[in-house]
């Protein structure tokens, strides 16, 4: 398949779109606008015919692995099936062709959807106050930390620190910084659970929030979460729950019930929004009633049978995004929740956990899994032995999997496990696929280092030179660069 760039296909005079003649007559735009504002030429975009646009992007698409085509056990990313029915529904004109500033009388359907979705998210989390506005998980973290900051400001408390374990997602410290806090790392145990002693040593009344991912990034449920929450609360701090791993506990345990004060969802993970090659996601947050006044505006409320967008909450932190939020992702989440219902959602987590434990039971015989024989919806195998015995790295294994038609697991995360391979099968894969993946993984561990260092062999490209990319950055095409 060609990797010619669209710019290299350009030829002066070709074009795709033709716009209609102007039906209102009148002066030209050049006459209507001041000369000094006008460019002499339109931007030098590529000039290509429509069939070329179609063939170019169609062929590019086929260079990707995707959930629609391959098993994609990318740990922590919950690459589950993205239902086609949700795509079709989200495209209905009555949902897709709505302007955010339409009169509310013309929006009662979608506002009802949001209102119900706020309730579902609140119910599933056990944290009743919901904002649908944040645009991504990390954005939700940031928003929630701003909510916490507003809360402590209101209380007149000066709390400057955010704590989180070393096994946390990188977004946790980054969000803490953006929310104006100092970030302090707490150690975690080999199970991924929080080191209570270290936590205790770092807790005081300057700590605003302790951020915890539970189930944690090793795929284990941290049993001590209740104890942690009590401890943090005893210092007046808040617990933030990174909801990345909610796929393990839907209908089974609720963050609000095990001590969280705030959390975000990743609806693109847990509620099957398509990942879009990197986005969009969404990052709705749920908080306790105490924290509700600080949520961003608008929120949807129902009064006298009418749904309304409420903008005027005096203690609100304001807004973190234009308009309402990543509505398209939220609609899909709504569809997903309605498709499954209470039993189905619980069954999602049960199946995700069953699938992960089954795969773990197959893999642990040839790839050590430091966390032990059980996991929640994902587990982290370590390639350390393989590395030591045969010089085969987790990256080698990952690359070789591509040759067999499997996307690689997440590698080298969490940072606390050497040669980590973080495997999340999700509930929407079959036993046959898991069997076949385990078999291939075993076969790879038996293969020669030489074969693996050079892997992948059958993919559209072989391993790229990432160092060169970073050292001599070429981040746009120029005619000279070809």
């Amino acid at each position: 398949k060609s990797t010619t760039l669209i710019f290299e296909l350009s030829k002066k005079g070709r074009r795709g779109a033709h716009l209609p003649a102007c039906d209102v007559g009148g002066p030209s735009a050049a006459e209507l606008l001041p000369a000094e504002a006008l460019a002499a030429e339109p931007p030098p975009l590529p000039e290509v015919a429509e069939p070329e646009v179609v063939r170019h992007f169609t062929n590019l698409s086929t260079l990707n692995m995707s959930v629609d085509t391959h098993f994609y056990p990318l740990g922590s990313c919950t690459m589950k099936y993205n239902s086609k029915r949700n795509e079709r529904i989200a495209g209905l004109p009555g949902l897709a062709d709505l302007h955010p500033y339409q009169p509310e009388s013309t929006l009662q359907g979608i506002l009802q959807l949001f209102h119900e979705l706020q309730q579902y998210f609140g119910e599933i989390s056990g944290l009743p106050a919901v904002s649908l506005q944040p645009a991504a998980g990390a954005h939700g973290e940031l928003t929630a930390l701003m909510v916490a900051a507003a809360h402590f400001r209101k209380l007149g408390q000066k709390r400057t620190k955010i704590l989180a374990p070393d096994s946390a997602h990188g977004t946790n410290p980054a969000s803490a910084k953006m929310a104006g806090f100092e970030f302090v790392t707490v150690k975690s145990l080999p199970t991924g659970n929080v080191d209570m002693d270290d936590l205790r040593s770092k807790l005081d009344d300057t700590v605003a929030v302790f951020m915890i991912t539970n189930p944690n990034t090793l795929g284990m449920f941290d049993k001590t979460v209740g104890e942690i929450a009590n401890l943090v609360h005893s210092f007046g701090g808040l617990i933030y729950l990174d909801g990345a791993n909610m796929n393990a506990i839907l209908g089974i345990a609720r963050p609000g019930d095990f001590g969280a004060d705030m959390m975000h969802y990743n609806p693109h993970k847990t509620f099957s929004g398509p990942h879009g090659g990197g986005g969009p996601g969404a990052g709705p947050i749920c908080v306790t009633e105490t924290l509700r006044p600080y949520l961003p505006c608008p929120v949807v409320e129902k009064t006298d049978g009418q749904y309304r967008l409420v903008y005027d909450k005096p203690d609100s932190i304001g807004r973190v995004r234009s308009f309402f939020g990543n509505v398209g992702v939220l609609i899909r989440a709504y569809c997903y929740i309605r498709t499954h219902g209470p039993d189905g959602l619980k069954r999602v987590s049960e199946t995700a956990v069953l699938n992960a434990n089954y795969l773990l039971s197959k893999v642990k015989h040839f790839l050590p899994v430091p966390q032990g024989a059980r996991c929640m919806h994902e587990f982290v195998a370590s390639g350390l032995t393989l590395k030591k015995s045969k010089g085969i790295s987790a990256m080698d294994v990952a690359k070789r999997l591509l040759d067999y038609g499997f996307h690689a697991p997440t590698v080298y995360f969490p940072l606390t496990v050497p040669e980590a391979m973080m495997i999340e099968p999700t509930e929407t894969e079959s036993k046959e696929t898991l069997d076949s993946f385990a078999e291939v993984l075993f076969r790879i561990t038996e293969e020669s280092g030489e074969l693996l260092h050079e892997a992948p062999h059958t993919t559209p490209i072989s391993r790229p030179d990432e160092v060169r990319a970073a050292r001599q950055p070429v981040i746009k095409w120029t005619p000279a660069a070809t």
Partner: protein
Amino acid sequence: MPYTYNTPDDERSMLQSIGVDSVAELFQFVPEEFRLQRPLDIPSALGELELTQHLSALANRNASAQQKACFLGGGSYDHFVPAVVDALASRGEFYTSYTPYQPEVSQGNLQVMFEYQTLICQLTGMDVSNASLYDGGSAVAEAVLLAMSVTGRNRVVVPASMHPEYRQILETYFACLGAELVTVAAPSGSVSLADIAAAVNAETACVVVQHPNFFGCLEDVQGIAKIAHAAGALLIQSFDPLSLGLLKRPADMDADVAVAEGQCLGTPMLFGGPYLGIMACKEQFVRRMPGRIAGQTVDRRGRRCWVLTMQTREQHIRREKATSNICTNQGLFALRAAIYLSEMGPQGLREVADLCVRKTAYAKQQLTSQPRFVSAFDRPTFKEFVVRDTQGRVAEMLEQAADAGYLAGVPLARWYPEMADCFLVAVTEKRTRQEIDGLVSALSAASKSSAPRPHTSLAQAAWA
């Protein structure tokens, strides 16, 4: 459970392999006290037919822009989306893949990112672009953070003619960061250089100017840039991508960072999101840019290929020292923008911009030649303009227009209390003369006053 595979037989044999007797046993690490002892209180499951019927019923309770002629703007627009955009972006290999962590099996997405970055550079004239941010509003906030980081300063100057929601986002971010937001009035519809000059000082990190601005008016970006640069501050321009079919590019006006809402590039209105945050900047700021960036390299066989690069800016490596906490991009919408711009090409883009300007001018002329309405500002406009209702019944009138089939305008009262009698009208290339004339009639007819003003006769003949 329409999306799962496990049969009772599967489940049995899987449990056996694990060595437990039941699925419940797998949750042994979740302490009993934290277990939910009841079913979730959400409605029971719907099959696809019922789900589709339910959501169609909800959708039918909204009035879409396919039913009513949409003249709403303010950052979200009813532009035409060519069919190729939907057809290509709906390929599963694009939308069900994720961040290209494995470049060998993600060249499609990586090349699209690289092409998108290049297209944005071509569009804006800027040196470098990232692979997208959340939306136009948070892109402004990220650009401001970049400027604060680059200059080590904490004061930010913004005209009131910038999108009020973008300014609100800055306020929210600044509340935590102790930064200072200085808002400069724009009583004539655009901000004056004198007012900007008065607001900018040696503590100023950047001036942010939106051009065309929230009121649809043009700003003197070059003039503002000179003032900012003279003070050692950065100039951040928030632009309308489609306006660049006609207007000078941000780089031509010496912007340091150019940001935009990219919704107009092939994405439907979607009630406000997901959208596309565009960010491009001068070369010297590239390592401060937030968001993913794709870079060119070669594979082991020497073939040109693409990878995610400059990842040391990012939070999964740098954690709290990252340039931003952003780790998703809006890949699917960057893809849509790339397809849109390829399909349009330079001529198509110019034609769209030209239609917007001319139809907007026509609508403004027609509407303000009605006795009831006056133009709020005497400034050139791109694709929207502010109208003052001399009868001051904006909300009522817009509701009536909606009933008559027109999403007629955005009332400004929420953000500008002094403009409670004003509304913003946007006219895209999709609006026909018939629709514009219908809008004028509908607004004129809405809750008519009994005391008409004398007709201000402008040169209507020019529009014949």
